[in-house]
């Protein structure tokens, strides 16, 4: 009996689908590489979250490495990473600046009062203009900027202590020395 090939069609179609899924998994569509890696960080000067009269921005950190963490109270992932941010802040190796993105000032202040504040300062970006300059795709995102003002690392999604230790710390050691 000749083997009827048409009965193999579903299996073949499925195999093609699996191949696509496998490629898709490796790519992780949420992970868009930042075009800013190695480039000078976009500068900004924004209202401070706590005090509209006070300006905070990239100029505050010239000459030393710092972290920029994009967060919002509506963002579930930001809540997940908050403990890690607090722990990193306690290590006192690098200042963390928050970029409060498309959020409500009162809600954001209440969040920090309730969960603790890991940031040395928080820039308030209700319309998301600065976030666009930084190529922010979704919150949370965390950038490491070296002492020369260049973006050396972008982390998308909740920051974990594992990611901090394995991905950020080695770069930080390097970033501290790079003038």
């Amino acid at each position: 009996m000749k083997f009827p090939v048409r009965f193999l069609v579903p299996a073949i179609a499925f195999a093609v689908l699996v191949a696509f899924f496998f490629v898709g998994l490796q790519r992780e569509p949420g992970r868009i590489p930042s075009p800013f890696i190695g480039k000078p960080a976009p500068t900004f000067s924004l209202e401070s979250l706590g005090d509209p009269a006070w300006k905070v921005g990239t100029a505050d950190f010239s000459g030393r490495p710092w972290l920029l963490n994009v967060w919002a109270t509506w963002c579930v992932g930001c809540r997940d990473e908050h403990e890690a941010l607090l722990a990193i802040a306690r290590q006192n190796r690098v200042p963390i600046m928050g970029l409060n993105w498309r959020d409500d000032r009162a809600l954001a202040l209440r969040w920090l009062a309730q969960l603790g504040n890991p940031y040395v300062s928080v820039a308030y970006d209700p319309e998301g203009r600065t976030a666009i300059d930084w190529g922010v795709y979704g919150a949370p995102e965390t950038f490491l900027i070296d002492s020369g003002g260049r973006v050396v690392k972008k982390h998308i999604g909740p920051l974990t202590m594992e990611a901090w230790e394995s991905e950020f710390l080695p770069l930080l050691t390097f970033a501290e020395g790079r003038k």
Partner: protein
Amino acid sequence: MIPELGHFALILALLLSVAQAVFGLAGGARSNTAWMAASRSAVVGQFVFTALAFGTLAWAFIQRDFSVLYVATNSHSELPLFYRVAAVWGAHEGSLLLWSLCLAAWTLAVAAGSKALEAPFRSRVLGFLGLISIGFQLFMLTTSNPFKRLIPAASEGLDLNPLLQDFALAVHPPILYLGYVGFSVAFAFACATLLEGRLDAAWARWTRPWTLAAWLFLTIGIALGSWWAYYELGWGGWWFWDPVENASFMPWLAGTALIHSLAVTEKRGLFKSWTLLLAVSAFSLSLLGTFLVRSGVLISVHAFATDPKRGIFILAFLTIVIGGALLLFAWRAPRLRSSAAFEPTSRESFLLLNNAFLIAALSLILLGTLYPLFIDALELGKVTVGAPWFNLMFLVPMLPLLALLGVGMHAAWKRGLLGTAKYRLYAIAGIGIAGSLLVGGAAYGDIRPMTTLGFALALWVMLSSLAMPWARIRARQPLPAAALGMVIAHFGVGLTTLGITGVQSFKVEKDFALGVGESAQIAGYDFKLAALRDVQGMNFIGVEADVVVSREGSPVTVLHPQKRLYNSGGNPMTEAGIEVGAARDLFAALGDQLGQGRWSMRLQYKPLIRYIWLGAILIALGGLVAALDRRYRAPVQARAGEAVVPVAQ
């Protein structure tokens, strides 16, 4: 201690699943009575231990045991008891456990309710179900353990996502999962059949009620999700073609095709390999949906916490289960021959067309859902396929499907349409078109081609469904439960069509900025923001508005939309104020505070929207009535005049 017991119970359940699969398949192959009995005992044990694991997790939630990581991330001490229980399946790990429990329950039901099946066949079915259980339990134990401890314990939980603190969404996952997982029974039946290389009418008769049961749960689950999205998300939409919605809709379409194809296989011994392929596909699409939702391979508003490790595990599992079944199909299905002639206007033809159109709709949705993934994998950029594409594409196969549905019900098996039925259908078609013009013109003062077509098809399907039992009763023919169920479900399809046509054609949605005392008009109704006040719930604070609705000066209703802030923080939640009516819904949702005492408000007028869900309820009810048909519980021996079709070699 209690969570560790749950963890241990889960491990025991996994071991018993292994026993169930090994003894089930080997016992079936060798017709070894002792092994087959061992498999059945393992089924009972597997259910008991899975239920125990589920119970301990629920206990940890009820007791607010924040030393369990999963509890600490998905509960809060202020969360009411009902939602503490519902929080068990509020995130990834717990919903997997719920999935496992559903599977164990279905397996137990099959073991208990299929005594009339031949023992080796039944044993193989249990074996295949055991293989699926192994996959899910391994998945949980290796990547998603819900019993993982948090040391030191959190003093307070992070709270259940406020979006999920709602009745419909609390009951939505269990019902949806019963549907998803229920298709595993038809899947296991199909695999066992392929293994034995023998398919007879009795097989189809045994598969039908199980498929119907799974399908009716899925129907209710999808309808609940749609209803929830309507009143909770605050946009007033009822279907968004989101990947997660599509993931539940695709198995539903495959299941619907399967139900119809099974009818032909049972009555006429036709479409055998096609029916088996559908049985494999329905469950495969359920698994595929799980993969899409949990792997993060597609971006969705529903996204659960995603993790690439989990994605790889599910993909491997998917490949083994679906790939294995499809290879089994390629190997064994060519042996199954169906040969019987039928007329072009016979019921077989109509059911064949039904399947063609349902699968066309399914393929279009699959394509639209995966298209962004294909384009990305081929490095052609990043795209999204929006609702307008789906709305249009879905209509292409659906319109002819509805048109044929009305005729198909009246067609006889094997022969063509009967003469009297033909004239009755002409009359119904005439009434449908006239009625449609009347509804569009008189009730809404507007006659448009697509609206007229939609109403005409809705009336056509409903009237045609009613004409069938009417003719039978007049001719003093019996109306078995299976036929009655079909009538109810098809009437429901008409009702849903009516609702969709009404909403899509005549809905009004507008945003306004209103201060207290100001009003806005839509669709002839006057909405006045009469008052705003603070409200306090058990675990939230919020603002509630009184929106007084009147029409031509006479009061209609007062709506109470709310904006809530849960004490645990997070995004403010919208609770829409809705006045439900047979002819229309009136809908008001509070948006953002705009300053100077004004609020943005979304006001909507939704004609006939209730019929979308009422129709879905009837569709599910029809499935229930049909599943309870006595014929399905009759002994398995082939009855007189119903040939058991042997395998032609």
